[in-house]
């Protein structure tokens, strides 16, 4: 076995030029579907290791699946790579493989340089110890020597910016403070390759901004960066290249913009698949009492009345709902709420508040149509549609997050992070010829 391994190493040395810091060749990793299989295979694998029996060529056993499948790519010094994909597409597993937390079941990964990983900050914190003490422990876990830590201690404290809480046990920290301290320690480790997994999702805006600045600093220093994120905007902003993973396999490997476009196209398909078969019978409340008024059908369309769930930024979204009323309803209100993909309530509106529809309706079938302005930025959004009475106390019918839309388009126009484009108007005029008067010279 040892001879085989050193041979393999020589091959990769020959092929890998000096600029390549990460190289994956046909890397696959399998996981168990159930805990029972985890225990079973874990025990047999351990026994085999103990007896020196070589594992078979990574073939799938019953109850296993490929979390990462046949991934091949390279990363060069100074390159920044985003890894994007749906939940469960293998992004985090791939990052853990790059970090050497576990070995591939097939293929090999060559790492040329020191790796720093922001996979879960604060993972090594001991709750009973103070922040100060934890800096030393966590630093050591991340491979820093006592001298390294002492040298950078003040920088770490300053960057974390948690003031007097430094001498408080970490168990009393808020999650934001834990992340601040954790990020600060990792960010001050010497590394040539930085792996980042979703850590920017926690912490307040101020700190997030600081992190992004730090990451940009790494990039300028010519370090390689791998970023796993759901935050497409962050990937677009920080990465020059992106890999789209689908079911563990590299589906697309291109510039960040192109991969993101592909991701949005996939997303729309993926969501359509998920929503299919979710058509509920809306004619009855809790399956027994007949509803007085209900949604029979809802479609999202573009302005040309063509049904779609994919819109480009700025394009209005037309909601066409077929509503059946079985009795006379006194001034019903039709409302909608928009949620972001991560469930954040972005806002809503209803016909009553906007005085758009102030009539009572008789028994019959109606088509309600309204247009939502194209204010949404790149991302996936859910729609909740409701019909309620004038007071809002009686809800006649509700389709809770049953409809969705995806806003995509050319990723090079991804200028903002957030959910909506806030409308603004600009004015420009020259007020004086002489700049010096205002204290400004060349």
């Amino acid at each position, binding site marked *: 076995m040892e001879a085989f*391994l050193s041979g393999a190493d020589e091959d990769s040395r020959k092929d890998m030029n000096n600029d390549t810091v990460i190289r994956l060749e046909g890397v696959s990793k399998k996981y168990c579907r159930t805990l029972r299989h*985890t225990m079973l295979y874990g025990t047999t*694998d351990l026994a085999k290791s103990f007896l020196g029996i070589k594992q078979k060529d*990574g073939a799938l056993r019953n109850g296993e699946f490929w979390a990462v499948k046949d991934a091949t790519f390279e990363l060069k010094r100074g390159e920044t790579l985003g890894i994007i994909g749906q939940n469960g597409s293998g992004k985090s597993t791939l990052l853990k493989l790059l970090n050497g937390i576990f070995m591939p079941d097939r293929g*090999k990964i060559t*790492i040329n340089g020191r790796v720093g990983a922001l*996979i879960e900050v604060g*993972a090594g914190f001991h709750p009973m110890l103070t922040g100060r*003490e934890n800096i030393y422990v966590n630093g*050591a876990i991340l491979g820093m020597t006592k001298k390294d830590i002492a040298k950078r201690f003040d920088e770490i404290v300053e960057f974390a910016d948690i003031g007097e809480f430094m001498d408080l046990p970490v168990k009393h920290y808020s999650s934001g403070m834990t992340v601040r301290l954790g990020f600060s320690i990792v960010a001050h480790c010497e590394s040539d390759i930085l792996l980042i997994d979703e850590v920017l999702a926690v912490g307040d805006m101020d700190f997030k901004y600081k992190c992004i600045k730090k990451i940009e600093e790494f990039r300028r220093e010519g370090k390689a960066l791998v970023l796993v994120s759901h935050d497409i905007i962050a990937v677009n902003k920080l990465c020059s290249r992106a890999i789209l993973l689908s079911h563990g396999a590299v589906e697309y490997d291109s510039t960040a913009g192109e991969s993101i476009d592909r991701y949005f196209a996939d997303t729309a398909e993926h969501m359509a698949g998920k929503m299919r078969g979710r058509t509920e019978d809306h004619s009855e409340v809790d399956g027994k009492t007949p509803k007085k008024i209900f949604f029979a059908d809802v479609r999202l369309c573009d302005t040309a009345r063509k049904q779609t769930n994919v819109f480009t930024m700025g394009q209005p979204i037309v909601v066409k709902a077929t509503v059946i009323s079985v009795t006379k309803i006194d001034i019903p209100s039709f409302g909608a709420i928009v949620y972001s993909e991560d469930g954040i309530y972005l806002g809503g509106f209803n016909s009553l508040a906007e005085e758009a529809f102030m009539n009572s309706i008789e028994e019959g079938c109606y088509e309600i149509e309204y247009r939502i302005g194209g204010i949404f930025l790149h991302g996936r959004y859910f729609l909740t549609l409701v019909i309620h009475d004038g007071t809002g106390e009686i809800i006649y019918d509700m389709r809770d997050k049953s409809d969705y839309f995806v806003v995509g388009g050319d990723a090079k126009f991804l200028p903002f992070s957030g959910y909506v484009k806030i409308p603004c108007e600009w004015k420009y005029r020259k007020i004086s010829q002489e700049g010096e008067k205002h204290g400004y010279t060349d």
Partner: protein
Amino acid sequence: MKHTKITYTPNGPVVEGIGGPFRTTRLMWRELVSARELVWRLFLRDFSAKYRQSALGVVWAVIMPLVTIGMFVAMNRSGIFIIGDVGVPYPLYAIIGITVWNLFSVGLVASTNALVGADVMVVKINFPKVALILAATGQSLVEFLIRMVLVGFAFIWYGITPSLDGLVICLICFVPLYLLMTGIGFVMSLVAGVVRDIANLVNIVLLALMLVTPILYPLKGASLLASANVWNPFNYLVNVPRDFLISGHTEYFNEFVSASFLSAAVFYAGWRLFYLAQTKIAERI
């Protein structure tokens, strides 16, 4: 750590420039050397965290053995359990025995739980896991030293002077017991990572071992227990240091040497298995 090229393969990491004979052993050694500071940090962390919110602190290290010995003394005095002559006052004999045994049992329990206790770290951070086990065994060394102070007080209390040469030899004689504990601890921590039951099993086996090994009582004549204990390495690993401390000599030196070789072999095998399997455990834990 200096800049190195490393390749991750299905059979473990391959470090550039380290090949040839004893490759694995040299990698293990390299990892151990790079982890020495981490071992110390983790040890300090566990030590200070353990006693931080505790009123009695390190005193607990002596309370537990005193309770066990108290029970045996009470049973002896009331005639339930006749111990017979051990050459020195029984409490002194028992305190030394249990101090030596606890070096093994406390360390084994701590190292069995070391990987599972740090599961979040193991799954999220790449660091030499060997440090977790060694830091855990460090706790038993500290408690051992505290209990040795108790042993010292016991000698003073009974007005007995231990053999000084014996004391030095006695301390050296703990090395094999420590190696055996760490070797088994390496393996148990891995198994506990996959099957959590092992932690309970270790406790039961330790209790049984403590009772069948002549730790709190001397072996008498030709009993079944006595003939079984001829093959029990713990018999020698515990009793030989005690003999040296009390009288400065032992009858079982050759058996002790054999048990020491066995301990060294278990230590190496356990460490090697741990080194090779640590990345396989990270995905199962």
